[in-house]
Structure formats: C-alpha cells, structure tokens
C-alpha cells in the first residue's frame, strides 16, 4: 500500500518584508525629533526632574556661562528676549518658558530673568535639567 505524503501547512512569509518596512517607516515618521535650541549650555545634573511634554510648543530661553541670553537660538539682550516672550504669550497664553541656564551662573542672574518673566506675565516656567539618556 502506498502512503501518500501529507503536505505540511506553511505560513506565507512573502509579505513579512512589507510589514517590517511599513513598521520601520511608521517609527521613522512618527518619532518626535529633538528640537532643542543649539546653544552650548552645561545644564545642572539634578535628579527628580519631571518629563516635559515636547508635543506642546514651548518658549526656549537660554543663558550660557558667558551670561549671553538666547531666545530660541537667537542671541539678544534680555529685554529683547522678554519682548519676544511677551509677544508669543499674547497669541498663546498657555505656553511654558523652558529655561536652559548654565549651572555655573550665579542665582542672581537667573533671578533677574525671573523678575523680567513675572513682568511679562510668563508664570509657567520649567528649569531644564540634564537629561539621562533614555529618560527615567
């Protein structure tokens, strides 16, 4: 008696490459690109910082070790930067000001920025700290 060979069921894998590439493209398109202002600032290495929502537009104010002030990436005087903050807040009052200040600066310099921000009505502030790779 002749035994008929049973055909083994197999899963078609021809579309696997398409799925993989689709996933790859999806991750590449949806990932949030880092939009940090390109200012060289030694941020304080402090634990306990909360993760900041990057999907919400923020105002970046930076101060480097030479006490230069940057509004986003543009270097300008503090009053000019505050005027820009005020203008930005007039269109969207919920914006948060992210302060990138060099850890070697004295507190009085940062406090001066706070005073200007108070006058401009920018009361929501985040003091950006050094981020650990990979987040928390």
């Amino acid at each position, binding site marked *: 008696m002749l035994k008929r060979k049973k055909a083994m069921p197999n899963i078609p894998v021809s579309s696997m490459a398409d*799925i993989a590439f689709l996933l790859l493209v999806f*991750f590449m398109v949806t990932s949030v690109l880092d939009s940090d202002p390109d200012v060289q600032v030694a941020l*304080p290495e402090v634990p306990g910082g*909360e993760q900041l929502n990057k999907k919400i537009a923020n105002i970046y104010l930076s101060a480097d070790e030479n006490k230069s002030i940057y509004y986003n990436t543009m270097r300008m005087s503090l009053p000019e930067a505050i005027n820009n903050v005020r203008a930005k807040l007039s269109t969207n009052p919920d914006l948060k000001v992210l302060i990138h200040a060099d850890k070697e600066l004295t*507190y009085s310099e940062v406090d001066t920025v706070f005073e200007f921000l108070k006058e401009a009505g920018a009361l929501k502030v985040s003091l950006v700290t050094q981020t650990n790779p990979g*987040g928390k």
Partner: protein
Amino acid sequence: MISLKKKVELDEISAASMSDMAFLLLVFFMVTAVFFVKEGLNINLPRKNAKPTEILREHVFEITVIGETVRLKNQSVGERNYKSLFEFRNELNKLEIPNLPEKLALIITSGETKYGNMLDALSAVQLRGFQKVSVKRKK
C-alpha cells in the same frame, strides 16, 4: 537548418532574507535609539503684585544655601548645618519630619550662590515631599 536556442536563464536575487534584514534593522534602531526626553523642575512664578501669604512658622522649613553649605532650620527639628549639598540631600531623606498638615519649605540663597546648587537644593526638597517651596534671594 534547425537552430536550437537555449533559453537564457536570468539571474535572480533572492529576496527571502529581506524580511530578516528589515526586522534586524528595526530591532537595531529600537534598541539603540536614545529618546531625548527633556526633564525639568516646574515652578510657578508669583504674579507681579501678588500679596505675601501668612503661614505658621512651625510649618516652615527654612533652608539657607550659601555656596556649597546648607543650613536647615525648623521649630521642631531645630537647626542643622551641612557641609555640602550631597550631605544635605542624604540627611534630608533620613530626617524625621513631624506630621504637619502642610509641609512648606523656604529656600534662602545668596545672589552669589551658583544656580546649579540652588536647583540641587530645590530638587532635594521637592523629592522629600514638600508641597510648597518658596525661593528667596538674600539682598
């Protein structure tokens, strides 16, 4: 004359391993990717003409940061001095804080104190569970 044409065999690139390569790439990118998540200490600045609020002295922990040194003062805990912010952070975590209805901290710092040190003290206090923290600059 009969000519026998031999069928030319076309070379093929095997695409069977394409999915393996794609998945390998996917895993590689997922594993090596560094997610740039910003971290920061959130603060709310007082309004320009905000009136100071009165609070009970025994609820307040007064933390004075001068340079690297820290002094902690409270009615129930007493006065303690720390040589460094590192010591302050460690000791603050061990410190038995009385059961108060609200834990308030007042950080007093000189203008010459480094911003990094002030932030270090602020984060230590926030991590210890103080609900409200106020920062005052010595003039």
